[in-house]
């Protein structure tokens, strides 16, 4: 219908000038050829007559959306665009398109809080693809449009973690249109794709809030791990002294390190492996653990592992496929690890492959997932924590177990309440 030329649309209109659809069609033809003022006239008439003569709310609603788009195209008519979209929302508050366009308009105006609010209102509607379709494309891309607006505006109102998380979720969405794909990738590049800031540290003043007050915890002044991994290991092993660890992807000796506390305060020993020579050189100078500088996927662990059982296995390489391939090299059939922290980096693993595969693999060797989807924030799940049922007390497992799909901020998880 909208391929018709202007003369035909005008002729139809003149034959029945109060016909809402003829008004709408003429408006659309004008809009398509760039004459948005003329289009506006006929969209306003559409709205009036569709309501007055046909009680056709949907056509009125669509005419208001198109009218707003015309004014948006004319630029610098912000009040009118917003007013028109608000009128559209008031007419059909259950439909998503006007919320989206209004959120987008506020975003264009750098009115971040307003844009964020309308994005959330739209996101929470029951229907994002209403059964009653509009006649024309009003630039509403679907539910992900709200997520996109929310992601953009969350950043500007200081919700950086939420923004990053939403952009990552969008980046996994195979249904996005190309222009959104580009925008999402650009935004990810601009705001940085690294979820980790400073380690989330434990201090002794938090002791009272620990969910499980294991022996020796009261003496810990400060830990070192990125996300409480060391505190988790000690929790699951009831503050074990003289434990043994295999640390793959050890990183720096103290900063963000998962075994420094174990070694320093609980007299653990073990093996620390990293591919980075500088890291290993630094590590060797200040830590007691045996160090190996190598590609973890190429090591023969039967030769490296001196004991049958170990208390802790850390698997943390980059990218996550390397971590998984390393896991496959560990002789789990001949060696047991009481606690395992496995970094799957789900937040950037768009197909969830590593997380799914690693869970299946570890469970096949008798490991129980105790904490799923640990994160440095409320959004970016990057690690799973396991225990071997033969080596950890069941009562502690029961106290700590949480394998919901939701991302768990590590400090929130370890405490009975946030300090």
């Amino acid at each position, binding site marked *: 219908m909208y391929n018709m030329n202007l003369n035909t649309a005008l002729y139809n209109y*003149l034959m029945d000038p109060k016909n809402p659809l003829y008004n709408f069609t003429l408006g659309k033809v004008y809009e398509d050829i760039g004459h948005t003022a003329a289009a506006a006239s006929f969209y306003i008439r559409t709205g009036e007559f569709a309501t007055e003569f046909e009680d056709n709310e949907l056509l009125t609603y669509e005419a208001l959306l198109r009218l707003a788009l015309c004014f948006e195209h004319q630029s610098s008519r912000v009040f009118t665009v917003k007013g028109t979209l608000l009128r559209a929302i008031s007419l059909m508050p259950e439909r998503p398109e006007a919320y989206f366009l209004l959120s987008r308009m506020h975003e264009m105006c750098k009115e971040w809080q307003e844009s964020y609010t309308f994005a959330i209102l739209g996101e929470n509607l029951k229907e994002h693809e209403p059964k009653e379709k509009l006649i024309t494309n009003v630039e509403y891309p679907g539910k992900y449009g709200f997520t996109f607006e929310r992601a953009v505006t969350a950043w500007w109102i200081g919700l950086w973690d939420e923004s990053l998380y939403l952009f990552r979720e969008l980046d996994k969405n195979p249904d996005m249109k190309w222009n959104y794909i580009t925008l999402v990738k650009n935004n990810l590049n601009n705001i940085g794709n690294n979820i980790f800031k400073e380690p989330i540290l434990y201090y002794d003043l938090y002791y009272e809030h620990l969910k499980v007050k294991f022996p020796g915890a009261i003496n810990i002044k400060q830990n070192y791990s990125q996300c409480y991994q060391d505190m988790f290991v000690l929790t699951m092993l009831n503050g074990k002294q003289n434990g043994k660890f295999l640390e793959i992807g050890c990183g720096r000796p103290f900063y963000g390190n998962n075994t420094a506390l174990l070694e320093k305060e609980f007299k653990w020993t073990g093996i620390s492996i990293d591919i980075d020579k500088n890291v290993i050189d630094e590590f060797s100078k200040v830590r007691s653990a045996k160090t190996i500088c190598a590609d973890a996927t190429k090591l023969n662990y039967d030769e490296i592992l001196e004991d049958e059982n170990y208390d802790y296995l850390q698997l943390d390489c980059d990218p996550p496929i390397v971590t998984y391939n390393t896991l496959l090299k560990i002789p789990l059939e001949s060696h047991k690890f009481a606690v395992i922290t496995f970094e799957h980096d789900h937040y950037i693993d768009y197909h969830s492959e590593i997380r799914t595969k690693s869970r299946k693999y570890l469970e096949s060797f008798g490991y129980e997932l105790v904490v799923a989807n640990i994160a440095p924030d409320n959004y970016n799940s990057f690690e799973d924590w396991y225990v071997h049922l033969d080596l950890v007390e069941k009562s502690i497992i029961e106290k700590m177990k949480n394998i919901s799909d939701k991302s768990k901020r590590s400090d929130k998880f370890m405490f009975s309440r946030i300090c």
Partner: protein
Amino acid sequence: MNRNLCKKVIFEGGTTIPLLIDPKYSKGLGLMNPSIFIDNNTRILLNLRNINYTLYHCEGQQLFNNRWGPLSYIHPENDMHLRTFNFMCELDINSLEIKNYCLTDTSAFDKPPLWDFAGLEDARLVNWNNKLYQCGVRRDTTPNGIGRMELSEIVEKDFSELKENECKWKEVSRIRIDPPGSPTYCEKNWMPILDMPYHFVKWTNPTEIVKVNILTGTSQQVFLGKSHIEGVSDFRGGSQVINWKKYRICVLHEVKLFNNKLSQKDARYMHRFIIWDKDWNIIKISKPFSFMDGEIEFACGMTIYKKDLLITFGFQDNAAYLLRIPNHMIEEIIGLKDNV
């Protein structure tokens, strides 16, 4: 009242033609109030007004007024002026569509506007003494918007003389016309009488004709009709006054201005044809009509072409059209057969 003259005309073999220029020049904004003129029987010229606003007018039950009411000018929020630009166009002699056009170059006389309405508005085309004029109202020369009719002489340059980005049509003189008698606030819509150089029908009921002295920019009343038609709204100006058979005719408008319950302004326009004899006695007035069901329309151009009557009009300040009325309908359409 006929609310859809175009439909009636189409049924009798006439046509309604959209008048368009490339939106990159108009920015997609209103093309309105075109004025048609046959230039020396050789070509069809048209002045097409382009404005920087979009008129928002709600009709019918007015359920979707915007925040300023049912009638408002949606101008750029960073520019409070309602600006007018005039494009000179040439129409194709067969299709009557615009075939070429350019913005009239007014740079020789432009000054920063002192009031919100900037530019020459609703300019009619007329050729007097071999000079082509745009004559319309300008309200930007005083801080309080005093409106005066102006005659802007325009000349056409040869394409070969044009520099890059130079306009083909250029304003070469500008005359601001003082009205006769006591000073008034706003003079507009004077209708140029094509066969009487520098004469306008200033008012129609009763008919008042003024003559302009282009050397002094003054005007004087040269005719005032005796008859006053009762029971009609003010007859405001419209097209040029043209000769047709033994008559002079024009199309003019009436407007009803009113406020809604929130004191927001609104308006409804109607048009009529007026027929005078050669002594300026009103012979007939047509019944009021609108062109294409709009409540705000405005015609300021009319001519005879190949015996047909051509009228150019704007729709809601946002679109422009040409209506071709076949010769056999003219008497009926202009009201010569009416008893009004």
